[in-house]
């Protein structure tokens, strides 16, 4: 079973969000990286880019497929994970750690409540995974 840390919030499209010191870090879940397979490129947003929740903001390409990454909350991009440029495999190796994508300064931290808690997300993956096979 894939790893779903309890302290994070999750989107149905498999991004995770971590609120820390007023900034939201975003990546893709362990379930998502496993389904994608080896990640070979990540297209990140621009610094200072303003995004609305649900907007396509990045792209992750694995050998198998390209997937859009959506902003889990509205806000401004305040950091991007440049290291993924040369080491995209970090998304596979540490999806909740070194494999993070970008950080947002949220317009309204309350939007995080629209995302799923870990147990709800686990249920979501099970139905999603069941559909796959």
């Amino acid at each position, binding site marked *: 079973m894939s790893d779903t840390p309890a302290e994070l919030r999750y989107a149905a499209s498999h991004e995770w969000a971590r609120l820390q010191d007023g900034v939201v870090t975003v990546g893709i879940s362990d379930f998502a990286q496993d389904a994608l*397979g*080896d990640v*070979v490129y990540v*297209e990140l947003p621009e610094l200072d880019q303003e995004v609305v929740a649900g907007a396509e903001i990045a*792209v992750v*390409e694995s*050998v198998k*497929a390209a997937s859009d990454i959506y902003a889990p909350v509205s806000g401004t991009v305040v950091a991007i994970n440049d290291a993924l440029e040369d080491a*995209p495999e970090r998304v596979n190796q540490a999806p909740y750690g070194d494999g993070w994508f970008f950080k947002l300064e949220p317009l309204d931290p309350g939007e995080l409540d629209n995302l799923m808690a870990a147990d709800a997300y686990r249920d979501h993956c099970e139905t999603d995974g069941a559909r796959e*096979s």
Partner: protein
Amino acid sequence: MSERKTPLYDEHVAADARMAPFAGWAMPLHYGSQIAEHHAVRRAAGMFDVSHMTVIDVVGVDALRLLRLTMANDPAKAVPGKAVYGVLLNAGGGIIDDLIVYGRDAGYRAVVNASTRDKVLNWLRGHASAMDVEMRERTDIAMVAVQGPEARARFAAVTRIDTDGLGPFSFLERDAWMVARTGYTGEDGVEVLLPAAEAVALWRRLKTSGVAPAGLAARDTLRLEAGLNLYGQDMDEQVTPLESNLGWTVAWTPEERDFIGRTALARQRAEKPARVLKGVVLGAKGVMRHGYGVATNAGGGVVTSGVFSPTLGYSIGLARLPRGAAGDCTVKIRAASVPARIVRPPFVRDGKRTFRSERPRAGPARR
């Protein structure tokens, strides 16, 4: 779901493979990392369960007659111990399937795609009705491809079957085993056809000797680097071998051999095909995928297969392009037109880059 399982299914599950449905079979996609499996094949040795492939023994007085009627290549070249790659064509020259035919003392053995099993059997039987020939599907046979620079040495170490004297596209038979120097990776190696009941033992012994299990995902990146077409993706009944970079598989001599599709193909050969299949290498970040548009000096075309090449570190693809397309081109990836270059496949053979021209703009090196 009720997908068919190969004799090695339990081995894949025990190795924690990600299983996926493929042409009605439950097959391993990868065992953790398709890139690691790809590199294992290019650098040492890997093995693939290809037991889903359809094995058909074609036997009887008219076996050769049937194959010479239906194959664009000449199966007469498959003397005992030799194999021939070729395509089956419809009357319009469209490709029904690609296959390998092995010549044996008692008839021929054809290995065709899993996805085309029904239509190929029907096609062959339809043309065999007035002939003394029988098609026996060998569902009792498993097939394991052992590929890579060290593949034959490791295979010999665990089976004591020495293939040193075996040339490419040749095979030997040992009891109920057939060991052929063929493959779908662009590396040295063998494909082993053996009784289903013996497959697990061979698989385990190879694994113990350091041969890495590799899944269909790595098989796809390896075959594409090797410039080998995938049926249903790079070719189908809508295109001819001349439009699929397979002109070399058409045996025009002897001239009196009137194989199905010859007339249509000869006409296209004289008029020159409007479209051809070429290689494309991407000059920037991104990965080409099936169906992406290509803009060239000679007009528009389409990517038929595209992947990230683990050996080269950037995206490569096959594309059906207007004849005369050459040099720089662009590939439409989502909103962007990404610079690319047209090359002649293969991209990689025996672990090394084979095409000559440089990519249009070198991206950052990545592994």
